[in-house]
C-alpha cells in the first residue's frame, strides 16, 4: 500500500501540563494527537509509580504524527511547555497511510 513520510513525536510530560501541551500543539498546526496513560518511570527527578500518586499527578505520553516539514514548528511549541518541566521528547521517522490527514 502507498505510504507517506511522517515524523512520530513522543512526549512524556506531567499530567497537570497535558492540556497546556496539547493546546500548544494544536496552535502550532498539529492536526491530531493521541494520549497514552503512563504507569511509572524513572529519570533525573527520581522514580515514581502511578500507585503512589493521589490527585491529578502522574505523567502521560502524547504521541503526534506529523508531516516532516512541520517538525520544527511542533518541537518549538512543545519545548516552550516541556522546558521547565519534568519530561522527555523523542522523534522517530515513520510512514503513514492516508497522508491527507496529517
Amino acid at each position: 500500500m502507498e505510504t507517506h513520510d511522517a515524523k512520530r513525536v513522543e512526549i512524556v510530560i506531567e499530567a497537570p501540563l497535558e492540556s497546556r501541551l496539547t493546546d500548544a500543539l494544536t496552535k502550532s498546526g498539529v492536526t491530531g494527537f493521541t494520549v497514552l496513560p503512563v504507569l511509572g518511570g524513572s529519570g533525573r527527578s527520581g522514580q515514581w509509580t502511578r500507585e503512589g500518586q493521589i490527585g491529578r499527578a502522574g505523567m502521560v505520553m502524547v504521541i503526534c504524527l506529523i508531516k516532516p516539514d512541520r517538525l520544527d514548528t511542533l518541537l518549538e511549541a512543545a519545548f516552550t511547555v516541556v522546558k521547565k518541566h519534568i519530561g522527555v521528547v523523542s522523534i522517530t521517522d515513520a510512514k503513514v497511510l492516508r497522508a491527507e490527514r496529517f
Partner: protein
Amino acid sequence: MNEILSLAGANLLSPIILSFALGVAAALARSDLAVPEAVAKGMSIYLLFAIGFKGGVAVSAHGIDTTLILSLIAGLVLSFGLPLIAFGLLRLMSGLNKTDAAAVAAHYGSISIVTFVAGTSILESRMIDSEGYLVAVAAVMEAPAILSALWLIARSGGGARMEPGLMREILLNGSIVLLVGAFAIGAITGEKGLAEISSFIVSPFKGVLCLFLLDMGLIAGRGLRSMRGELGLGTIAFAVVMPLLGSIIGMGAGMLIGLSLGGIVLMMILSASASYIAVPAAMRVALPEANPSIYLTLSLGVTFPFNLTLGIPLYLATAQFVTGV
C-alpha cells in the same frame, strides 16, 4: 495531661489510625500491597460527597447566621496568611531556597480534607458537636494559599507564572467543586435528602475512611522510603512545628468568631493541616522549579501522620483546656 495521653491512646488504637499505620508499615516493608488509583479516587469522591452533603444538611437544620459568614472570612484570612508565616519559619528553620520554601508554604496555608474528616469522626465518637458549615470553610481555604505563595515568589523576583487559566483551574479543581456542590445539595435537600441516602453516606463512612487511610499510609510510606535522609532535620522539624503554630492561630480565630468547642477544634485542624492534592498540582504548573518531593514528603509524609495520630487529640485537649468546656 493524663487525659491527653488516654485520648491520644484511644485515637491511636482506632481502626482508622491502625489502617493508616498498616499502610505505612506495608510500604516500608516494600510489600506490593496497593490500592488501584481508580479505587482510591473513587473513595475520595465518596468521602468528599458525604462530608459535603452532611455539612449542608447541618446548615439547613440550623440556618445561616453571622458566625457562618465570619468563619468563611476567617478561613480566607488564614489561608492567605498562614503561608507568610510558614515561609518565614522555613527561612529560619530550614536551608530551603526561596522557591522551595514558597512552594512548601502554599501547602500549609491550604488544607487536608482527610485530616478534617478524621477530626470530624473523632469528634463524633466523643459526641462533641460542631458547626456543619465548617466544610464550606474547608473548601474556601483550599486555594488562597496558592496565591500567597506566588506573591511571595514574585516579590522576591522569582519566576512564578500566573498563567492564563491557572486561576480558574485552581478555583474549580475537582475537590473544591465536589465539596461545595455536595454541601449545596445537602443544604437544599436537608434532613429529607439525608434520610434517602444516609445508608450510603453515613453508615459505611468510617469503614471507607479506613480503606482510604490504608492507601494514604501506603503512599506516605513509599514517599518516606524514597526520601530517607534527603531532607535536613530543620526542614522536618518545620513539618511538626508549623501545624502546632497553625493550630494555635486557628484556635484564636475560632474563639474570636465564637465557634463551639467542636468548631474550634476543626478550625485548628484546618489551620494545622497541609494540602497534598490541589496545591501540588498547582505548583507543578505555576512553580515547576520547586522540587515536588520536598513538599510532598513534608505534607504527606510528616505533617499528615503527625496530625492524624498526635495532632488531633492534642488540639482537642488544648481547646478543652483553654475554653474550659
